[in-house]
């Protein structure tokens, strides 16, 4: 059974349709890159999969691990192993990163029927995870993302991912605004977390990130549809020829092609 099956997914914000029939299948162990120009709907796809109530799903279905994902509240999705690394991580002044991470970790443990852990045990776990994303332990005492630089925010997203160990991670433009060193650290973190039983969807505008996180499949999104799918070479071709190369053509065969991993 595939981990994720998206069929004919349509969604809008207010009156504006953004996703117009997305088909995508993701199996365990795979990395999929979703690329596309600005406004193509790639971030919306990420938000819809995480359950952001600001987006209204108007058609299609999403099956996650055999279950209807669209019926699940955002927190239930997270507890079931879905993780969205935000393009714009939210600042929450007043709530410490340590408290936030432990609360999230314990909520997910509770959902799995595991015991909650105390702050001391959690500190041990954190040491290892912080090292993975090369973060200073001082940031645990700081408020969630508050006053963090762009790079720190993105690393904090990957830190959360490392702590929560998702089965399906969705990285929404995690590379935007990162210098090459930060990009490498973030990508290393993602690669270390890769396992045969989990999957990753990398949403990005640029091919650059895919030098570090090498995808099994690349999909090109435009106007809320997947126009072209292929292997990792597709990203290089896009880099070379630009998005116009895909978007100016007709979306022939998009449906079938998008089921690359099926």
């Amino acid at each position, binding site marked *: 059974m595939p981990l994720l099956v998206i069929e004919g997914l349509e969604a809008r914000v207010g009156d504006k349709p953004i996703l117009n029939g997305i088909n995508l299948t993701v199996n365990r162990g795979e990395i999929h890159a979703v690329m596309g120009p600005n406004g193509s709907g790639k971030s919306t796809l990420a938000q819809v999969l*995480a359950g*952001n109530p600001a987006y209204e799903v108007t058609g299609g279905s999403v099956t996650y691990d055999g279950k209807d994902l669209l019926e699940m509240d955002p927190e239930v999705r997270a507890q079931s192993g879905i993780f969205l690394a935000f393009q714009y991580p*939210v600042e929450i002044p007043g709530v410490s990163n340590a408290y936030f991470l432990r609360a999230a970790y314990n*909520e997910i443990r509770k959902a799995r029927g595991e015991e909650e852990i105390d702050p001391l045990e959690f500190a041990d776990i954190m040491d290892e995870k912080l090292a993975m994303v090369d973060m200073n332990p001082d940031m645990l005492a700081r*408020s969630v993302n508050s006053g963090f630089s762009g790079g720190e925010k993105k690393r904090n997203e990957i830190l959360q991912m490392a702590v929560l160990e998702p089965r399906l991670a969705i990285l929404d433009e995690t590379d935007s605004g990162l210098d090459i060193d930060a990009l490498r650290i973030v990508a290393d973190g993602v690669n270390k977390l890769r396992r045969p039983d989990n999957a990753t969807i990398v949403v990005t505008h640029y091919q650059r990130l895919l030098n570090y996180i090498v995808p099994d499949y690349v999909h090109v999104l435009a106007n809320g549809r997947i126009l072209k799918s292929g292997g990792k070479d597709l990203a290089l071709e896009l880099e070379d020829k630009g998005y116009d190369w895909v978007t100016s053509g007709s979306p022939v065969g998009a449906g079938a092609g998008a089921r690359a991993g099926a």
Partner: protein
Amino acid sequence: MTAFPMTDSAVESYVAAFDELSSSDSSPSWVQSMRRAAFERFAALGFPTTKNEDWHFTSTSPIADQEFVLLDAPSGDVRREELEPFTFGAPGWYTMVFVNGRFAAELSNLGKLPKGVKLRDLASAWTAAPEVVDRVGKLSSYDVHAFTALNAAFMHDGAVVQIANGVELDRPIHLLFVTDATAAKGMMHPRNLIMVGKHAKATVIESYVSTSDAMYLTNAVTEVSLADGATLQHYKMQREGARAFHVSTTEANQARDSHYVSFSFAIGASLARSNVYTTLDGEGGGATLNGLFMLDGQQHSDHQTQIVHAKPNCFSRELYKGILDDRSHGVFNGKVYVHPIAQKTDGKQTNKTLLLSDTAHIDTKPQLEIFADDVKCTHGATIGQIDQTALFYLKSRGINESLARRLLTYAFAADVLETIEVDDIRLSLERMTLERFV
């Protein structure tokens, strides 16, 4: 029977109580004269109505419509362990406990007070320390404030705190006013006097709490004087019973280079009004007035502050935050007066409110009157709701809706809670904030 010029039928029920008190009053004659003058003033003023600008958003009729019995004799039965929820887990503090308005020595902890620190109960101090209590009534203004006048007419007990010049207190003083079920339909008029000597430093916590849900009225007045260079951290914890009425007025007078730091925390009572007034009466002083109120159900809680910059080169900082749920109603009115001579005044006032429901209501009114021309005064008020983006962010990490909302509610209050310098209080209030809206 005394005849007073009656203008208000609500005042009449207080006449009998005043006559009764007068007939058995053992306080010094100057106090008796002040009582009489204050009662006459109260009778003339009557309970404030919403036509009074200072009471525009708060109706006192739930209080005026009741006939309260004056609680002046010792009453009640409160056990030490019942006080535990209200002592912030800090048993070592110097503590004066008052039960239903009267000092309860057996529940108090006056331990070994450092040299230069005197704690007295007012009921004894009238006769035992007349030279100290002669300042009672000098720092508060019963001529304009009806509830202060009512307090002056009926005041009987309370705490008299004296910190001598140069003394830095090693731990807080806690004045814990507790009511129990026997306070039902009763009224209490606690009167406190806090005097901090030159360059002395102290922390005083005033708590108003209840072990029952009885309906009663607390009408407290606290007078504070800070001598040159003195610092007082003054916390007020209003955690009255759910059906209680609570009115309290703090009036502080600050000499040069003194610093008054007030934190007003209010979560209790059905109808509450808190007044914190301070006058910067010497150069180089500072006043910091912070507050946090959290309401739900049908609670009404009104907070009025007044900072008078009477001398040059003083600063004032004010941050009041309200969190309102259900059909509750909050009021904030922050007055800042800058006298013509008070040049180089530096004042900043902020009021922020978080509304957790569509039916909660806040009235906020900054009121700056500036008569000097070389000053820096700012004010700002915001009213908001839970940030949906932040809520989704927390939920996307597996945190359930209820905990996510509580965390964001806590986060809203975090900056004002961080100003609390007494760790035991800060931790306790942080927990109360997290648990308030479950």
